[in-house]
């Protein structure tokens, strides 16, 4: 699903939080929003998920987002929230089944197709063994996998991910991101994510979009966007970008010169 954002803006009260963002996400591509805290990454994701009103245009394929019904939107766009609430004691399979809500009528129950989709998703995300487990007995990595599973059960064309790996250790981060990359390739899923972790963003996203103070200030391949000059300007600190021979890329913080720190604290 080709996604096109055209001059998208969000205001809260009289404060402009997102300003004139225009962005294209080709079908099956993974674009990652990066930027400092409070830059407007989450706000932009929430606007696309129709949680908050926005100005401008968003097109999904050839459909205008604002013209779609809630249900139609929910069948196309799934959001993995930063702090997804997991109802205490609910079982994994029941939780993932809630992702089928856009396909079930108001007072309806899940049907055969919903059950088979959920079974497939559980299988795909290696959760079949956990389907009876209460959500509060899962580890951090398992929790995140289950939250992604609920979003995938929505059978979305566009998957929005807000800081999908923040609370995880490095190994679990890679597992979850590999999983998402697998889903991206398997079902030609279009992905827009937001993260703080520049190095991981560079490793997984096809394109990066740097947002600062609500405006899109740079976009392109990781190599284009993650430069010492651009990052230094928008994060307000000194950073060094290192490229290795395999095309990998790492962002390394540079400590301010010693003269500026108080020697007594050392």
């Amino acid at each position: 699903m080709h996604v096109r954002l055209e001059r998208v803006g969000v205001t809260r009260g009289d404060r402009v939080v997102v300003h004139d963002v225009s962005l294209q996400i080709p079908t099956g591509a993974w674009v990652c929003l990066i930027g400092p805290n409070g830059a407007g990454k989450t706000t932009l994701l929430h606007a696309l998920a129709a949680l908050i009103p926005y100005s401008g245009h968003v097109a999904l394929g050839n459909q205008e987002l604002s013209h779609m019904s809630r249900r139609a939107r929910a069948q196309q766009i799934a959001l993995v929230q930063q702090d997804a609430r997991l109802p205490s004691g609910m079982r994994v399979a029941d939780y993932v089944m809630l992702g089928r809500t856009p396909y079930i009528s108001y007072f309806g129950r899940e049907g055969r197709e919903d059950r088979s989709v959920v079974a497939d998703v559980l299988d795909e995300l290696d959760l079949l063994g956990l389907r009876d487990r209460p959500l509060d007995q899962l580890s951090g990595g398992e929790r995140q996998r289950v939250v992604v599973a609920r979003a995938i059960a929505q059978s979305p064309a566009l998957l929005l991910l807000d800081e999908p790996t923040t609370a995880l250790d490095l190994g679990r981060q890679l597992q979850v991101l590999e999983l998402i990359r697998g889903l991206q390739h398997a079902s030609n899923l279009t992905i827009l994510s937001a993260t703080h972790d520049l190095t991981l963003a560079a490793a997984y996203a096809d394109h990066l979009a740097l947002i600062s103070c609500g405006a899109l200030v740079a976009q392109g391949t990781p190599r284009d966007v993650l430069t010492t000059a651009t990052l230094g300007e928008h994060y307000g600190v000194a950073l060094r970008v290192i490229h290795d021979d395999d095309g990998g890329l790492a962002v390394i913080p540079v400590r301010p010169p010693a003269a500026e720190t108080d020697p007594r604290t050392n």
Partner: protein
Amino acid sequence: MTTLPAIEVSASEPAALPRAHARDALWLGLGVVVLFASMLAGLFVGAVDIPPQDIVGDLVSRMPLVSMHSPLSHVDQAIVWQLRLPRVVLGALVGGMLALCGAAYQGIFRNPLADPYLLGVASGAGLGATIAIVFAINFTFLDFQALPLLAFIGAVLAVGLAYVVGRSVGAGRSSTTLVLGGVAVAAFLTAMQTFIQQRHTEQLQLVYNWILGSVATAGWGQVTTMLPYALLALVVILLHGRLLDVMGLGDDAARTLGVRTNRVRLAVIGAVTIGTAAAVAVSGLIGFVGLIIPHVVRLLGVRTHRTLLPLSMLLGASFLVLCDLIARTVVSPSELPIGVVTAVIGAPCFALVLRTSRVEA
């Protein structure tokens, strides 16, 4: 979603659902058995000694094509069918409704301390009942007596007021403002009720008796008064079972799944208000059932509202029937207020259940 899904469970059924679902069905079956047993106990035991086998004999003698004389005298027949049975049925209706409404509120407000009186039903009904008692208002409108009618109207108005106040505060998106609106309205109405009560201390005892609650009846009147509202609330709440699970994800997540959260909340609040107001109007302010029974059901391991709601109802109904049985027998021929029994029996039992179960929440 125009075609109804065919009900078919074949060998190729995907193994997606938790095995716990089979256990949930078992619990529901057990709930029905417990309720039936409680109601039988309520029917068989009372201040007047009537042998259970004679009650069964009387029942058999009433069946068509059976020619047999009832073993019960006319007085005993009246006691069983015009006093005990309506009382047992009313207890079951009230207890079931309070527990069902409590479970629905705990779900919709994502708050384990929520009970059916959360948005001011009790204070509104209390004010209405106090006005009826103190000013000796006595009329019948259609089939309704003045006291239950005023209590019902007070309860509905109180929640309506809490809803308006809660929605007008802030963005109106959060359920917290609704709860706070309920707190404000309840405080105000309770103050008014206390004021009226203090000015008319001679009727204090009557008001107090009403507040403590009772399912004592003088026939089927209260049951038929409450039944239509209870059925309406029951149907609406049970139909929202799956959506209450979705609401448990939080408002934002529910909305990304295409759910109109404010509409769902309004529908559930409306149904709970009608059901609770009807229960309170005929039985007074019986506490504890609506708060505790849903937690007992959760401790059994039931977590989806589709099972939680009906099972809460069955156990709430059984619990209140048994509490009433105790209320009318331990100090017979006089009676204990049922609200006292629900708390005195319920609180230690609940503490015991809490202790013996592994609670993770």
